[in-house]
């Protein structure tokens, strides 16, 4: 299938605003998971997360997630040099889960405690779909606009959907990404499911005890390869294929054999027209729950064998940023290809013997890789794999 060029990147991460800060953080193996300051955590078993440092600016009238999305989207458009005129024919696809829920919660909590809080605005922008309307109207993007919710793989699904529109010739350029701010609901819910490690998460470690949550946003500009070449744009990488599948097995547990994950990875490789052996790096979903990492490793082994595939988890440094994760990790994959440096799995001391891969423990690895994949899996068994090829 026709590849699509990645010509712009934008990030708001727990390392702060900007792609540069993000790459310094993850290539340095820095863990950004700390005690939570945004919401009350008293009485809960886990009280840490990877929060975005509070220096973003932007209008206080906007939700925290909208501010993340705007900053990352603007950086990506500027990076790719997509001007106002072109934006009229640019698609905008956002993966989101929490929307403006953090602010809506604040209002609802006050209301429940009998504090009169006239804040209907927060509710009107609490849905995931709020981001495309804000980003679209502020940045003047009036092509197709869509909001996709596939739980923890939303940020990867958005890139796949944007690639469809570019390949089908609906638009020449698309801005796609994912965003989520921390919410009480997410924090309380994962605590309730006992899926959170009270200490910073340790993907692939034999002593891993669960995930850490995080927040952020990332956007990429995707465009026709010919168009990017014609305008001499910098091509970070090409999105050569994707695969999406559904386990249809259980609402919170992956299929024990990783059957749906395998189908997503194989479909992505088939679309990219490459053999498993051509892939040098897998940016794993790698949440650090005992179950996910074991089953993902099983699926990776099923597809790639136990060969020299390098596997690492960005979540070891920025936690699970929910709908942003799929895009933040796609950006990590693209940067790894370009820099020829594989970001590590931080805090990995003893790799689980059930995980037969080099998981790049603690320190980044220099490696020139031609093809890499990024895996994202979500509640409901929603699997997405993206395949990238290094830019020419």
């Amino acid at each position: 299938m026709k590849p699509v060029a990645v010509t712009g990147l934008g990030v708001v991460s727990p390392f702060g605003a900007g792609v540069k800060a993000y790459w310094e953080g993850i290539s340095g193996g820095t863990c950004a998971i700390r005690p939570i300051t945004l919401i009350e955590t008293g009485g809960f078993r886990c009280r840490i997360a990877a929060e975005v440092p509070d220096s973003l600016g932007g209008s206080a009238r906007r939700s925290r997630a909208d501010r993340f999305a705007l900053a990352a989207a603007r950086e990506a458009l500027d990076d790719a040099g997509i001007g106002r005129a072109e934006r009229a024919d640019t698609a905008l696809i956002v993966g989101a889960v929490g929307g403006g829920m953090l602010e809506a919660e604040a209002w609802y909590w006050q209301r429940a405690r009998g504090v009169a809080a006239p804040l209907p605005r927060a509710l009107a922008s609490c849905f995931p779909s709020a981001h495309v309307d804000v980003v679209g109207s502020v940045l003047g993007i009036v092509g197709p606009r869509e909001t996709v919710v596939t739980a923890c793989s939303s940020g990867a699904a958005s890139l796949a959907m944007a690639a469809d529109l570019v390949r089908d010739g609906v638009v020449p350029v698309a801005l796609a990404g994912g965003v989520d701010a921390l919410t009480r609901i997410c924090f309380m819910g994962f605590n309730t499911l006992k899926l959170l490690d009270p200490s910073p998460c340790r993907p692939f470690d034999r002593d891993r005890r669960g995930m850490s949550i995080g927040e952020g946003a990332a956007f990429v500009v995707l465009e026709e390869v010919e168009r990017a070449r014609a305008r001499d744009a910098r091509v970070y990488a090409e999105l050569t294929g994707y695969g999406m599948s559904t386990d249809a097995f259980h609402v919170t547990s992956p299929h024990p054999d990783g059957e749906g994950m395998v189908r997503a990875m194989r479909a992505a490789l088939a679309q990219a027209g490459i053999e498993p052996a051509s892939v040098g790096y897998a940016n794993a979903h790698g949440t650090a729950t005992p179950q996910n990492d074991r089953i993902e490793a099983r699926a990776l082994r099923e597809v790639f064998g136990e060969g020299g595939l390098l596997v690492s988890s960005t979540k070891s440094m920025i936690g699970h940023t929910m709908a942003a994760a799929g895009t933040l990790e796609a950006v990590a994959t693209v940067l790894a290809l370009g820099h020829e440096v594989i970001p590590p799995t931080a805090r990995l001391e003893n790799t689980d013997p059930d995980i037969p891969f080099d998981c790049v423990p603690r320190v980044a690895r220099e490696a020139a890789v031609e093809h890499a994949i990024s895996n994202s899996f979500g509640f409901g068994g929603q699997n997405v794999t993206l395949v990238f090829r290094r830019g020419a």
Partner: protein
Amino acid sequence: MSGRRVAITGAGVVDGHASGVLSRLLDETEARRLSRVCQMTVAAGRLALAEAGLAGGTELALLVGTEFGDMVSTIRFVDDYLQRGIPGLSALLFPHTVMNTMAAATAIAVSAKDLSLTLNVPTVAGELAIARGAAAVRAGRIEACLAGGADEPPQLVLDTFREAGAGADVRGEGAGFVVLEALDAARARGARILGEVVGEAWRALAVRPHGVGRATRSRAIAAALAGAGAASAEIGLVYTSANGDGPREAWERALLDEALAPHRPPQRSLSLPAGRHSGLAARAVATAATEAGAGLALVHAVARGGNQVAIVVAGPRARAA
């Protein structure tokens, strides 16, 4: 629009006011575990697949449009905490706080194992899911899909919209899907063809969030007609998204008038009196196909905030191959 032809082979709609049908369509665990909106979605999916005579599997995809997701369960999850503290938090309710919960429940219930996408947008979500599903079948990315939408509007949110002056419209609850598949494959398996989706497009119009626009030029309708290879004169009937929101309806009429001028085909809406919900798009597409007979119909929706969807539907007797 190049690519495969897209057949409509089934439709299933469960309206909230007719939800007595649920007990017949759900098993004991689904009745116990699934929220109301999830139950309506599962039931609508089953009805649509039964009409199409299609089974689940790795070649069945799912596209669910929704405006509110399962906000009713989300509010219940939060209320449990605010009333009883940490022990009140429900593990069973938490997955319902993520909007893809209806898609997840339906995928499990009907074994839809290809891609599953939940699309969130105010008031045009069902149309968007159907348009995207049709485009994916046409391009050969998927073989077949359930495409439609579901909603259960929470009273709290409706009250708040009304206070903010954005909620004069009539909202209902319900779920609905059409089954879309490649026409050749549908014929090969002997399926009854209810009609075809012959063109689809979705675009944004420049307008502030929650606002109603003044521009009347519509790229979505033009693109959908171009994809269908049809002239505006061929559209014999339009299903609109009219829902009682006066300014928005006036805008929709102006968009349609300009896109179809000088023709003014009859316009209908399914929203009243029971109220508009994201599942109605499936009924609009299926009904439009039936009524189009040997001709073409347009299913159109535009939302406050500027999201616009146009779907050109051909009747079962149109363009017989």
